Protein backbone atom coordinates (compact mmCIF):
# COMPACT_ATOMS: atom_id res chain seq x y z
CA UNK A 1 0.00 0.00 0.00
CA UNK A 2 2.85 2.36 0.84
CA UNK A 3 4.54 1.77 -2.49
CA UNK A 4 1.23 2.17 -4.30
CA UNK A 5 0.55 5.46 -2.50
CA UNK A 6 4.02 6.86 -3.20
CA UNK A 7 3.72 5.88 -6.82
CA UNK A 8 0.42 7.75 -7.20
CA UNK A 9 1.77 10.73 -5.30
CA UNK A 10 4.82 11.03 -7.55
CA UNK A 11 2.62 10.94 -10.62
CA UNK A 12 0.42 13.68 -9.15
CA UNK A 13 3.46 15.92 -8.56
CA UNK A 14 4.61 15.45 -12.14
CA UNK A 15 1.19 16.36 -13.52
CA UNK A 16 0.99 19.52 -11.41
CA UNK A 17 4.46 20.60 -12.58
CA UNK A 18 3.55 20.02 -16.22
CA UNK A 19 0.40 22.10 -15.80
CA UNK A 20 2.48 24.89 -14.24
CA UNK A 21 4.73 24.91 -17.27
CA UNK A 22 1.76 24.98 -19.63
CA UNK A 23 0.08 27.76 -17.66
CA UNK A 24 3.19 29.83 -17.66
CA UNK A 25 3.71 29.48 -21.39
CA UNK A 26 0.06 30.32 -21.96
CA UNK A 27 0.31 33.54 -19.96
CA UNK A 28 3.51 34.39 -21.78
CA UNK A 29 1.81 33.93 -25.15
CA UNK A 30 -1.20 36.06 -24.32
CA UNK A 31 -1.34 39.15 -26.51
CA UNK A 32 -1.61 42.44 -24.69
CA UNK A 33 0.29 43.92 -21.80
CA UNK A 34 -0.97 42.88 -18.38
CA UNK A 35 0.41 46.09 -16.88
CA UNK A 36 -1.57 48.20 -19.32
CA UNK A 37 -4.71 46.24 -18.61
CA UNK A 38 -4.24 46.48 -14.89
CA UNK A 39 -3.65 50.21 -14.77
CA UNK A 40 -6.25 51.24 -17.31
CA UNK A 41 -5.93 53.61 -20.24
CA UNK A 42 -5.04 56.73 -18.26
CA UNK A 43 -1.80 55.33 -16.80
CA UNK A 44 1.50 56.75 -17.98
CA UNK A 45 4.26 54.63 -19.51
CA UNK A 46 6.33 55.19 -16.34
CA UNK A 47 3.57 53.79 -14.16
CA UNK A 48 3.23 50.76 -16.41
CA UNK A 49 6.99 50.22 -16.38
CA UNK A 50 6.98 50.37 -12.58
CA UNK A 51 4.28 47.71 -12.40
CA UNK A 52 6.13 45.52 -14.88
CA UNK A 53 9.20 45.63 -12.67
CA UNK A 54 7.06 45.00 -9.62
CA UNK A 55 5.45 41.83 -11.02
CA UNK A 56 8.69 40.72 -12.65
CA UNK A 57 7.80 41.13 -16.32
CA UNK A 58 11.18 42.76 -17.02
CA UNK A 59 13.10 39.63 -16.07
CA UNK A 60 14.31 37.07 -18.65
CA UNK A 61 11.69 34.41 -19.37
CA UNK A 62 13.44 31.56 -17.55
CA UNK A 63 13.84 33.69 -14.43
CA UNK A 64 10.15 34.52 -14.64
CA UNK A 65 9.30 30.86 -14.94
CA UNK A 66 11.57 29.86 -12.09
CA UNK A 67 10.06 32.54 -9.86
CA UNK A 68 6.56 31.46 -10.85
CA UNK A 69 7.40 27.81 -10.27
CA UNK A 70 9.07 28.17 -6.88
CA UNK A 71 6.64 30.66 -5.43
CA UNK A 72 3.68 28.58 -6.62
CA UNK A 73 5.01 25.55 -4.76
CA UNK A 74 5.29 27.60 -1.60
CA UNK A 75 1.69 28.74 -1.98
CA UNK A 76 2.48 32.24 -3.24
CA UNK A 77 0.41 32.66 -6.37
CA UNK A 78 1.10 36.40 -6.69
CA UNK A 79 -1.30 39.26 -6.24
CA UNK A 80 -4.34 39.82 -8.33
CA UNK A 81 -4.31 42.94 -10.46
CA UNK A 82 -7.58 44.65 -9.56
CA UNK A 83 -7.64 44.71 -5.75
CA UNK A 84 -4.01 43.77 -5.12
CA UNK A 85 -5.02 40.95 -2.76
CA UNK A 86 -3.02 37.70 -2.67
CA UNK A 87 -4.42 35.35 -5.33
CA UNK A 88 -4.17 32.36 -3.00
CA UNK A 89 -6.41 34.07 -0.46
CA UNK A 90 -9.00 35.02 -3.08
CA UNK A 91 -9.12 31.51 -4.51
CA UNK A 92 -9.26 29.82 -1.12
CA UNK A 93 -12.13 32.09 -0.19
CA UNK A 94 -14.16 30.88 -3.19
CA UNK A 95 -13.07 27.26 -3.10
CA UNK A 96 -15.48 26.02 -0.39
CA UNK A 97 -18.49 27.06 -2.48
CA UNK A 98 -17.30 25.05 -5.47
CA UNK A 99 -16.35 22.09 -3.31
CA UNK A 100 -19.79 22.11 -1.69
CA UNK A 101 -21.38 22.19 -5.14
CA UNK A 102 -19.26 19.39 -6.57
CA UNK A 103 -19.49 17.14 -3.54
CA UNK A 104 -23.24 17.57 -3.23
CA UNK A 105 -23.53 16.81 -6.95
CA UNK A 106 -21.40 13.68 -6.58
CA UNK A 107 -23.25 12.77 -3.40
CA UNK A 108 -26.75 12.73 -4.75
CA UNK A 109 -25.82 11.24 -8.10
CA UNK A 110 -23.98 8.38 -6.36
CA UNK A 111 -26.85 7.92 -3.93
CA UNK A 112 -29.29 7.61 -6.81
CA UNK A 113 -27.08 6.12 -9.54
CA UNK A 114 -25.79 3.10 -7.62
CA UNK A 115 -29.21 1.75 -6.57
CA UNK A 116 -30.56 2.44 -10.07
CA UNK A 117 -27.68 0.56 -11.67
CA UNK A 118 -28.08 -2.35 -9.24
CA UNK A 119 -31.79 -2.47 -9.82
CA UNK A 120 -31.35 -2.47 -13.60
CA UNK A 121 -28.76 -5.25 -13.32
CA UNK A 122 -30.94 -7.41 -11.08
CA UNK A 123 -33.97 -6.86 -13.34
CA UNK A 124 -31.89 -7.36 -16.45
CA UNK A 125 -33.76 -7.00 -19.77
CA UNK A 126 -37.00 -6.10 -18.05
CA UNK A 127 -38.98 -3.00 -18.94
CA UNK A 128 -37.54 -1.29 -15.85
CA UNK A 129 -34.02 -2.03 -17.08
CA UNK A 130 -34.76 -0.54 -20.50
CA UNK A 131 -36.32 2.55 -18.98
CA UNK A 132 -33.33 3.11 -16.68
CA UNK A 133 -31.11 2.63 -19.72
CA UNK A 134 -32.85 5.20 -21.89
CA UNK A 135 -33.07 7.74 -19.07
CA UNK A 136 -29.38 7.27 -18.32
CA UNK A 137 -28.44 7.92 -21.93
CA UNK A 138 -30.73 10.93 -22.04
CA UNK A 139 -29.40 12.65 -18.91
CA UNK A 140 -25.83 12.05 -20.05
CA UNK A 141 -26.59 13.60 -23.44
CA UNK A 142 -28.28 16.83 -22.34
CA UNK A 143 -25.66 19.49 -21.48
CA UNK A 144 -25.63 20.62 -17.86
CA UNK A 145 -26.09 24.31 -18.68
CA UNK A 146 -29.38 23.58 -20.42
CA UNK A 147 -30.48 21.65 -17.34
CA UNK A 148 -29.37 24.61 -15.20
CA UNK A 149 -31.34 27.18 -17.23
CA UNK A 150 -34.46 25.02 -17.41
CA UNK A 151 -34.28 24.28 -13.69
CA UNK A 152 -33.86 27.98 -12.97
CA UNK A 153 -36.80 28.76 -15.22
CA UNK A 154 -39.09 26.11 -13.77
CA UNK A 155 -38.30 25.93 -10.05
CA UNK A 156 -37.04 29.42 -9.32
CA UNK A 157 -38.69 31.80 -11.77
CA UNK A 158 -42.02 30.14 -12.56
CA UNK A 159 -42.86 28.05 -9.50
CA UNK A 160 -40.79 30.15 -7.08
CA UNK A 161 -40.09 27.07 -4.96
CA UNK A 162 -36.37 27.59 -4.72
CA UNK A 163 -34.05 30.59 -4.66
CA UNK A 164 -32.52 31.62 -7.97
CA UNK A 165 -29.28 33.34 -7.07
CA UNK A 166 -26.41 33.28 -4.63
CA UNK A 167 -25.17 30.72 -2.15
CA UNK A 168 -27.38 31.66 0.76
CA UNK A 169 -26.84 33.63 3.92
CA UNK A 170 -23.48 32.80 5.47
CA UNK A 171 -23.83 30.93 8.73
CA UNK A 172 -27.37 29.83 7.92
CA UNK A 173 -26.85 26.18 7.01
CA UNK A 174 -30.44 25.55 5.95
CA UNK A 175 -30.48 28.57 3.67
CA UNK A 176 -27.21 27.51 2.08
CA UNK A 177 -28.58 24.02 1.57
CA UNK A 178 -31.68 25.35 -0.17
CA UNK A 179 -29.50 27.47 -2.43
CA UNK A 180 -27.45 24.39 -3.28
CA UNK A 181 -30.36 22.31 -4.58
CA UNK A 182 -30.71 23.63 -8.14
CA UNK A 183 -26.99 24.03 -8.95
CA UNK A 184 -26.35 20.60 -7.51
CA UNK A 185 -29.14 19.18 -9.65
CA UNK A 186 -27.50 20.60 -12.76
CA UNK A 187 -24.03 19.35 -11.82
CA UNK A 188 -25.12 15.88 -10.76
CA UNK A 189 -27.88 14.79 -13.11
CA UNK A 190 -25.67 13.56 -15.93
CA UNK A 191 -23.67 11.60 -13.40
CA UNK A 192 -26.73 9.69 -12.30
CA UNK A 193 -26.75 8.32 -15.84
CA UNK A 194 -22.99 7.62 -15.99
CA UNK A 195 -23.00 5.90 -12.63
CA UNK A 196 -26.15 3.87 -13.26
CA UNK A 197 -24.74 2.57 -16.55
CA UNK A 198 -21.35 1.82 -15.09
CA UNK A 199 -22.77 0.06 -12.03
CA UNK A 200 -25.20 -1.93 -14.15
CA UNK A 201 -22.46 -3.14 -16.48
CA UNK A 202 -20.04 -4.07 -13.71
CA UNK A 203 -22.79 -5.62 -11.59
CA UNK A 204 -23.76 -7.88 -14.48
CA UNK A 205 -20.14 -8.86 -14.83
CA UNK A 206 -19.61 -9.60 -11.16
CA UNK A 207 -22.99 -11.31 -10.77
CA UNK A 208 -21.90 -13.75 -13.46
CA UNK A 209 -18.61 -14.43 -11.70
CA UNK A 210 -17.72 -17.82 -10.33
CA UNK A 211 -17.49 -16.61 -6.74
CA UNK A 212 -21.10 -15.43 -6.83
CA UNK A 213 -22.09 -18.95 -7.88
CA UNK A 214 -20.05 -20.27 -4.96
CA UNK A 215 -21.81 -17.90 -2.57
CA UNK A 216 -25.17 -19.06 -3.89
CA UNK A 217 -24.14 -22.68 -3.55
CA UNK A 218 -23.55 -22.00 0.16
CA UNK A 219 -27.08 -20.70 0.46
CA UNK A 220 -26.11 -17.13 1.28
CA UNK A 221 -29.14 -14.83 1.10
CA UNK A 222 -29.51 -13.24 -2.32
CA UNK A 223 -29.59 -9.74 -0.87
CA UNK A 224 -26.24 -10.32 0.77
CA UNK A 225 -24.80 -11.72 -2.46
CA UNK A 226 -25.97 -8.74 -4.49
CA UNK A 227 -25.27 -5.91 -2.07
CA UNK A 228 -22.07 -7.24 -0.51
CA UNK A 229 -20.33 -9.77 -2.68
CA UNK A 230 -21.14 -8.38 -6.12
CA UNK A 231 -21.55 -4.69 -5.35
CA UNK A 232 -18.22 -4.23 -3.61
CA UNK A 233 -16.48 -5.35 -6.80
CA UNK A 234 -18.86 -3.49 -9.10
CA UNK A 235 -18.30 -0.23 -7.26
CA UNK A 236 -14.56 -0.08 -8.06
CA UNK A 237 -14.77 1.07 -11.70
CA UNK A 238 -17.35 3.65 -10.64
CA UNK A 239 -14.94 5.22 -8.17
CA UNK A 240 -12.27 5.41 -10.85
CA UNK A 241 -14.83 6.97 -13.20
CA UNK A 242 -15.72 9.59 -10.60
CA UNK A 243 -12.05 10.43 -10.04
CA UNK A 244 -11.43 10.97 -13.73
CA UNK A 245 -14.78 12.71 -14.19
CA UNK A 246 -14.10 15.35 -11.60
CA UNK A 247 -12.72 17.53 -14.40
CA UNK A 248 -15.99 17.41 -16.30
CA UNK A 249 -17.79 18.08 -13.04
CA UNK A 250 -15.74 21.25 -12.66
CA UNK A 251 -16.97 22.27 -16.12
CA UNK A 252 -20.57 21.84 -15.06
CA UNK A 253 -19.81 23.75 -11.87
CA UNK A 254 -18.58 26.74 -13.89
CA UNK A 255 -21.90 26.85 -15.75
CA UNK A 256 -23.96 26.30 -12.61
CA UNK A 257 -22.13 29.08 -10.79
CA UNK A 258 -22.71 31.50 -13.65
CA UNK A 259 -26.37 30.59 -14.15
CA UNK A 260 -27.20 30.72 -10.44
CA UNK A 261 -24.88 33.69 -9.74
CA UNK A 262 -23.20 31.54 -7.13
CA UNK A 263 -19.80 32.44 -5.75
CA UNK A 264 -17.13 29.87 -6.53
CA UNK A 265 -13.96 29.10 -8.41
CA UNK A 266 -15.74 28.72 -11.75
CA UNK A 267 -17.32 32.13 -11.57
CA UNK A 268 -14.03 33.55 -10.32
CA UNK A 269 -12.00 32.30 -13.27
CA UNK A 270 -14.72 33.28 -15.77
CA UNK A 271 -14.82 36.84 -14.45
CA UNK A 272 -11.02 36.96 -14.23
CA UNK A 273 -10.66 36.06 -17.89
CA UNK A 274 -13.24 38.60 -18.97
CA UNK A 275 -11.34 41.29 -17.01
CA UNK A 276 -7.92 39.99 -18.10
CA UNK A 277 -6.90 39.54 -14.48
CA UNK A 278 -4.15 37.06 -15.41
CA UNK A 279 -2.55 36.30 -12.04
CA UNK A 280 -6.01 35.37 -10.83
CA UNK A 281 -6.55 33.18 -13.90
CA UNK A 282 -3.30 31.25 -13.46
CA UNK A 283 -3.83 31.00 -9.73
CA UNK A 284 -7.35 29.65 -10.05
CA UNK A 285 -6.48 27.20 -12.79
CA UNK A 286 -3.49 26.00 -10.78
CA UNK A 287 -5.54 25.50 -7.64
CA UNK A 288 -8.27 23.67 -9.52
CA UNK A 289 -5.65 21.48 -11.19
CA UNK A 290 -4.11 20.59 -7.86
CA UNK A 291 -7.58 19.90 -6.54
CA UNK A 292 -8.37 17.79 -9.55
CA UNK A 293 -5.15 15.82 -9.19
CA UNK A 294 -5.78 15.33 -5.48
CA UNK A 295 -9.29 14.02 -6.06
CA UNK A 296 -7.95 11.68 -8.71
CA UNK A 297 -5.34 10.52 -6.24
CA UNK A 298 -8.02 10.05 -3.61
CA UNK A 299 -10.08 7.93 -6.00
CA UNK A 300 -7.04 5.77 -6.76
CA UNK A 301 -6.31 5.35 -3.07
CA UNK A 302 -9.92 4.41 -2.28
CA UNK A 303 -9.83 1.79 -5.03
CA UNK A 304 -6.54 0.55 -3.60
CA UNK A 305 -8.11 0.35 -0.17
CA UNK A 306 -11.14 -1.58 -1.40
CA UNK A 307 -9.35 -3.86 -3.82
CA UNK A 308 -6.53 -5.91 -2.33
CA UNK A 309 -5.42 -7.00 -5.81
CA UNK A 310 -4.65 -3.43 -6.89
CA UNK A 311 -2.81 -2.75 -3.66
CA UNK A 312 -0.36 -5.61 -4.04
CA UNK A 313 -0.33 -5.52 -7.83
CA UNK A 314 1.56 -2.27 -8.02
Amino acid at each position, binding site marked *: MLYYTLNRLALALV*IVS*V*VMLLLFS*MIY*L*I*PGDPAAVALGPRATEAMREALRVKIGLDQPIWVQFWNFFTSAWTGDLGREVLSDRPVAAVVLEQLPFTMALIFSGVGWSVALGIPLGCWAAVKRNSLADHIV*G*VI*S*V*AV*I*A*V*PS*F*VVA*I*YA*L*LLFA*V*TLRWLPAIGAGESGNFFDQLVHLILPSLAVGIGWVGYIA*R*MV*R*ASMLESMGAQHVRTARAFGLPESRIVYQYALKIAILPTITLLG*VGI*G*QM*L*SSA*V*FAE*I*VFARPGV*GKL*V*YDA*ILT*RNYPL*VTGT*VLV*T*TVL*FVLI*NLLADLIVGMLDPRVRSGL
Partner: protein
Amino acid sequence: MSEAVSKGAGPIRRILSEPLGVVGVVLVLVVVLGAVFADVLATVDPSSISPRDRFLPPSLAHPFGTDHLGRDLFSRVLHGSRIALAVALFATAASLSIGIVLGLIAGFGPRWLDALLILLFDSVKSFPTVMLALALVTLFGPSLTAVIVVVVLVNVPGYARIVRTQTLSMKDADFVAAAESMGAGFSRILRVHILPNAIGPLLILASMDIPVVIAIEAGMSFLGLGVRPPTPSWGAILNDGFTAIRDTSWIAVAGGLPIIVTTLGFTFLGETVRDVFDPRLKVR
Protein backbone atom coordinates in the same frame (compact mmCIF):
# COMPACT_ATOMS: atom_id res chain seq x y z
CA MET B 1 -32.51 -7.06 -29.17
CA SER B 2 -32.01 -7.12 -32.91
CA GLU B 3 -32.13 -10.87 -33.20
CA ALA B 4 -35.31 -10.65 -35.24
CA VAL B 5 -33.33 -9.00 -38.01
CA SER B 6 -30.82 -11.23 -39.73
CA LYS B 7 -27.15 -10.33 -39.64
CA GLY B 8 -27.15 -9.75 -43.36
CA ALA B 9 -29.78 -6.99 -43.19
CA GLY B 10 -28.66 -3.53 -44.26
CA PRO B 11 -27.26 -1.22 -41.58
CA ILE B 12 -30.14 1.22 -41.90
CA ARG B 13 -32.73 -1.49 -41.41
CA ARG B 14 -30.85 -2.78 -38.40
CA ILE B 15 -30.77 0.68 -36.83
CA LEU B 16 -34.46 1.14 -37.55
CA SER B 17 -35.28 -2.18 -35.89
CA GLU B 18 -34.32 -0.65 -32.54
CA PRO B 19 -36.89 1.69 -30.96
CA LEU B 20 -34.14 3.97 -29.66
CA GLY B 21 -32.64 4.10 -33.15
CA VAL B 22 -35.98 5.17 -34.65
CA VAL B 23 -36.34 7.99 -32.12
CA GLY B 24 -32.76 9.05 -32.83
CA VAL B 25 -33.23 9.03 -36.59
CA VAL B 26 -36.45 11.05 -36.34
CA LEU B 27 -34.92 13.68 -34.04
CA VAL B 28 -31.80 13.99 -36.19
CA LEU B 29 -33.91 14.23 -39.34
CA VAL B 30 -35.95 17.05 -37.81
CA VAL B 31 -32.79 18.99 -37.05
CA VAL B 32 -31.09 18.29 -40.38
CA LEU B 33 -34.18 19.13 -42.43
CA GLY B 34 -34.65 22.28 -40.34
CA ALA B 35 -31.10 23.32 -41.16
CA VAL B 36 -31.38 22.51 -44.87
CA PHE B 37 -34.73 24.23 -45.36
CA ALA B 38 -34.16 27.05 -42.88
CA ASP B 39 -34.72 29.72 -45.55
CA VAL B 40 -37.94 28.09 -46.77
CA LEU B 41 -39.42 27.37 -43.34
CA ALA B 42 -38.54 30.67 -41.74
CA THR B 43 -39.11 33.59 -44.05
CA VAL B 44 -38.11 36.21 -41.48
CA ASP B 45 -34.48 37.31 -41.40
CA PRO B 46 -33.00 35.88 -38.16
CA SER B 47 -31.09 39.11 -37.52
CA SER B 48 -33.74 41.72 -38.33
CA ILE B 49 -34.40 43.79 -35.24
CA SER B 50 -37.85 45.15 -34.49
CA PRO B 51 -37.97 46.87 -31.09
CA ARG B 52 -41.77 47.14 -31.15
CA ASP B 53 -42.10 43.31 -31.20
CA ARG B 54 -39.94 42.53 -28.15
CA PHE B 55 -40.77 39.56 -25.93
CA LEU B 56 -43.75 38.36 -27.96
CA PRO B 57 -45.13 34.94 -26.94
CA PRO B 58 -45.48 32.24 -29.62
CA SER B 59 -48.02 33.04 -32.33
CA LEU B 60 -48.68 32.11 -35.94
CA ALA B 61 -46.37 34.88 -37.13
CA HIS B 62 -43.65 33.93 -34.62
CA PRO B 63 -44.00 30.21 -33.76
CA PHE B 64 -41.37 30.45 -30.99
CA GLY B 65 -42.05 34.10 -30.08
CA THR B 66 -39.52 36.92 -30.28
CA ASP B 67 -36.47 37.89 -28.24
CA HIS B 68 -35.42 41.07 -26.41
CA LEU B 69 -34.62 42.77 -29.71
CA GLY B 70 -37.82 41.62 -31.38
CA ARG B 71 -36.03 39.05 -33.57
CA ASP B 72 -38.02 36.00 -34.66
CA LEU B 73 -36.86 33.06 -32.48
CA PHE B 74 -38.11 30.37 -34.86
CA SER B 75 -35.92 31.75 -37.58
CA ARG B 76 -32.97 32.13 -35.22
CA VAL B 77 -33.32 28.55 -33.99
CA LEU B 78 -33.47 27.18 -37.54
CA HIS B 79 -30.46 29.19 -38.66
CA GLY B 80 -28.71 28.26 -35.42
CA SER B 81 -29.00 24.60 -36.44
CA ARG B 82 -26.81 25.39 -39.45
CA ILE B 83 -24.06 26.67 -37.18
CA ALA B 84 -24.41 23.70 -34.83
CA LEU B 85 -24.34 21.09 -37.58
CA ALA B 86 -21.58 22.81 -39.53
CA VAL B 87 -19.37 22.96 -36.43
CA ALA B 88 -20.22 19.34 -35.59
CA LEU B 89 -19.33 18.12 -39.07
CA PHE B 90 -16.25 20.23 -39.59
CA ALA B 91 -14.81 19.78 -36.12
CA THR B 92 -15.44 16.04 -36.13
CA ALA B 93 -13.79 15.68 -39.53
CA ALA B 94 -10.83 17.73 -38.35
CA SER B 95 -10.50 15.73 -35.11
CA LEU B 96 -10.68 12.49 -37.07
CA SER B 97 -7.91 13.49 -39.49
CA ILE B 98 -5.62 14.89 -36.82
CA GLY B 99 -6.39 11.94 -34.55
CA ILE B 100 -5.46 9.45 -37.26
CA VAL B 101 -2.17 11.23 -37.95
CA LEU B 102 -1.23 11.52 -34.26
CA GLY B 103 -2.26 7.92 -33.66
CA LEU B 104 0.02 6.77 -36.46
CA ILE B 105 2.88 8.89 -35.10
CA ALA B 106 2.38 7.39 -31.65
CA GLY B 107 2.15 3.89 -33.06
CA PHE B 108 5.01 3.97 -35.54
CA GLY B 109 7.21 6.56 -33.87
CA PRO B 110 9.85 6.00 -31.20
CA ARG B 111 8.82 4.87 -27.71
CA TRP B 112 9.48 8.22 -26.04
CA LEU B 113 7.28 10.06 -28.52
CA ASP B 114 4.53 7.53 -27.96
CA ALA B 115 4.78 7.96 -24.19
CA LEU B 116 4.77 11.74 -24.52
CA LEU B 117 1.69 11.75 -26.75
CA ILE B 118 -0.17 9.39 -24.44
CA LEU B 119 0.65 11.64 -21.48
CA LEU B 120 -0.63 14.63 -23.43
CA PHE B 121 -3.81 12.81 -24.47
CA ASP B 122 -4.51 11.81 -20.88
CA SER B 123 -3.97 15.29 -19.48
CA VAL B 124 -6.12 16.97 -22.13
CA LYS B 125 -8.87 14.39 -21.73
CA SER B 126 -9.08 14.82 -17.99
CA PHE B 127 -8.74 18.61 -17.93
CA PRO B 128 -12.03 20.46 -17.48
CA THR B 129 -13.28 21.41 -20.95
CA VAL B 130 -14.49 24.80 -19.77
CA MET B 131 -11.06 25.72 -18.39
CA LEU B 132 -9.53 24.70 -21.70
CA ALA B 133 -12.06 26.81 -23.59
CA LEU B 134 -11.52 29.81 -21.32
CA ALA B 135 -7.75 29.53 -21.72
CA LEU B 136 -7.93 29.32 -25.50
CA VAL B 137 -10.34 32.19 -25.79
CA THR B 138 -7.96 34.24 -23.67
CA LEU B 139 -5.29 33.54 -26.27
CA PHE B 140 -7.28 33.94 -29.49
CA GLY B 141 -10.43 35.81 -28.56
CA PRO B 142 -13.95 34.44 -28.91
CA SER B 143 -14.69 33.01 -32.36
CA LEU B 144 -15.96 29.98 -34.21
CA THR B 145 -12.31 29.00 -34.70
CA ALA B 146 -11.80 28.90 -30.94
CA VAL B 147 -14.78 26.55 -30.65
CA ILE B 148 -13.36 24.25 -33.29
CA VAL B 149 -9.91 24.28 -31.70
CA VAL B 150 -11.42 23.31 -28.34
CA VAL B 151 -13.45 20.51 -29.89
CA VAL B 152 -10.41 19.20 -31.76
CA LEU B 153 -8.28 19.27 -28.60
CA VAL B 154 -10.94 17.45 -26.60
CA ASN B 155 -11.78 14.83 -29.22
CA VAL B 156 -8.47 14.06 -30.91
CA PRO B 157 -7.15 11.81 -28.10
CA GLY B 158 -10.02 9.35 -28.56
CA TYR B 159 -9.38 8.83 -32.27
CA ALA B 160 -5.63 8.82 -31.85
CA ARG B 161 -5.87 6.07 -29.24
CA ILE B 162 -7.89 3.83 -31.54
CA VAL B 163 -5.43 4.24 -34.40
CA ARG B 164 -2.45 3.84 -32.08
CA THR B 165 -3.80 0.58 -30.64
CA GLN B 166 -4.52 -0.73 -34.12
CA THR B 167 -1.09 0.33 -35.36
CA LEU B 168 0.70 -1.28 -32.44
CA SER B 169 -1.11 -4.56 -32.97
CA MET B 170 -0.36 -4.41 -36.71
CA LYS B 171 3.25 -3.38 -36.32
CA ASP B 172 4.27 -6.74 -34.94
CA ALA B 173 2.05 -8.79 -37.20
CA ASP B 174 4.01 -10.82 -39.70
CA PHE B 175 2.17 -9.65 -42.76
CA VAL B 176 3.10 -6.04 -42.18
CA ALA B 177 6.73 -7.02 -41.94
CA ALA B 178 6.30 -9.02 -45.10
CA ALA B 179 4.62 -6.11 -46.84
CA GLU B 180 7.37 -3.78 -45.71
CA SER B 181 10.14 -6.05 -46.89
CA MET B 182 8.43 -6.30 -50.23
CA GLY B 183 8.76 -2.57 -50.47
CA ALA B 184 5.15 -1.61 -49.95
CA GLY B 185 4.87 2.07 -49.25
CA PHE B 186 3.82 3.49 -45.92
CA SER B 187 0.56 4.73 -47.41
CA ARG B 188 -0.21 1.25 -48.70
CA ILE B 189 0.28 -0.34 -45.27
CA LEU B 190 -1.95 2.37 -43.88
CA ARG B 191 -4.64 1.90 -46.49
CA VAL B 192 -4.62 -1.84 -46.63
CA HIS B 193 -3.74 -2.96 -43.12
CA ILE B 194 -4.52 -0.30 -40.57
CA LEU B 195 -7.46 1.80 -41.68
CA PRO B 196 -9.80 -1.08 -42.61
CA ASN B 197 -9.50 -2.39 -39.06
CA ALA B 198 -9.71 0.98 -37.35
CA ILE B 199 -12.46 2.53 -39.44
CA GLY B 200 -15.35 0.85 -37.60
CA PRO B 201 -14.38 1.96 -34.08
CA LEU B 202 -13.42 5.41 -35.46
CA LEU B 203 -16.81 5.98 -37.04
CA ILE B 204 -18.63 4.67 -33.98
CA LEU B 205 -16.67 7.07 -31.77
CA ALA B 206 -17.35 9.90 -34.21
CA SER B 207 -21.08 9.26 -34.08
CA MET B 208 -20.93 9.31 -30.29
CA ASP B 209 -18.86 12.51 -30.30
CA ILE B 210 -21.26 14.59 -32.38
CA PRO B 211 -23.61 15.42 -29.48
CA VAL B 212 -20.56 16.32 -27.38
CA VAL B 213 -19.39 18.73 -30.08
CA ILE B 214 -22.83 20.31 -30.28
CA ALA B 215 -22.86 20.73 -26.50
CA ILE B 216 -19.40 22.37 -26.56
CA GLU B 217 -20.42 24.81 -29.29
CA ALA B 218 -23.64 25.74 -27.51
CA GLY B 219 -21.87 25.98 -24.15
CA MET B 220 -19.12 28.25 -25.43
CA SER B 221 -21.59 30.47 -27.26
CA PHE B 222 -23.66 30.59 -24.08
CA LEU B 223 -20.63 31.92 -22.20
CA GLY B 224 -19.95 34.39 -25.00
CA LEU B 225 -16.77 32.55 -25.98
CA GLY B 226 -18.00 31.19 -29.30
CA VAL B 227 -20.00 32.58 -32.17
CA ARG B 228 -20.14 36.37 -32.15
CA PRO B 229 -23.51 38.11 -32.19
CA PRO B 230 -25.64 38.68 -34.14
CA THR B 231 -24.98 35.30 -35.77
CA PRO B 232 -27.71 33.00 -34.45
CA SER B 233 -26.43 30.17 -32.29
CA TRP B 234 -28.47 28.08 -29.87
CA GLY B 235 -26.08 28.84 -27.04
CA ALA B 236 -26.34 32.58 -27.72
CA ILE B 237 -30.16 32.37 -27.80
CA LEU B 238 -30.05 30.51 -24.49
CA ASN B 239 -27.89 33.29 -23.08
CA ASP B 240 -30.38 35.92 -24.31
CA GLY B 241 -33.08 33.89 -22.60
CA PHE B 242 -31.03 33.70 -19.42
CA THR B 243 -30.51 37.46 -19.39
CA ALA B 244 -34.22 38.09 -19.97
CA ILE B 245 -35.43 35.19 -17.81
CA ARG B 246 -37.47 37.47 -15.55
CA ASP B 247 -39.22 39.12 -18.51
CA THR B 248 -40.11 36.05 -20.53
CA SER B 249 -39.41 32.34 -20.51
CA TRP B 250 -39.88 31.80 -24.24
CA ILE B 251 -36.39 32.79 -25.26
CA ALA B 252 -34.73 30.37 -22.85
CA VAL B 253 -37.10 27.58 -23.86
CA ALA B 254 -36.47 28.27 -27.55
CA GLY B 255 -32.70 28.25 -27.00
CA GLY B 256 -32.63 25.10 -24.90
CA LEU B 257 -35.09 22.93 -26.78
CA PRO B 258 -33.06 22.51 -30.00
CA ILE B 259 -29.98 21.67 -27.94
CA ILE B 260 -31.91 18.98 -26.10
CA VAL B 261 -33.48 17.60 -29.29
CA THR B 262 -30.16 17.50 -31.16
CA THR B 263 -28.01 16.01 -28.39
CA LEU B 264 -30.69 13.41 -27.60
CA GLY B 265 -31.20 12.58 -31.26
CA PHE B 266 -27.51 12.12 -32.04
CA THR B 267 -26.87 10.28 -28.77
CA PHE B 268 -29.72 7.80 -29.34
CA LEU B 269 -28.51 7.30 -32.90
CA GLY B 270 -24.89 6.91 -31.79
CA GLU B 271 -25.80 4.40 -29.10
CA THR B 272 -27.77 2.35 -31.58
CA VAL B 273 -25.01 2.50 -34.17
CA ARG B 274 -22.56 1.21 -31.58
CA ASP B 275 -24.85 -1.54 -30.32
CA VAL B 276 -25.62 -2.68 -33.85
CA PHE B 277 -22.10 -2.60 -35.25
CA ASP B 278 -19.92 -3.36 -32.29
CA PRO B 279 -21.67 -5.29 -29.52
CA ARG B 280 -18.31 -5.69 -27.76
CA LEU B 281 -18.29 -2.00 -26.91
CA LYS B 282 -21.78 -2.15 -25.48
CA VAL B 283 -21.78 -0.66 -22.02
CA ARG B 284 -25.40 -0.69 -21.18
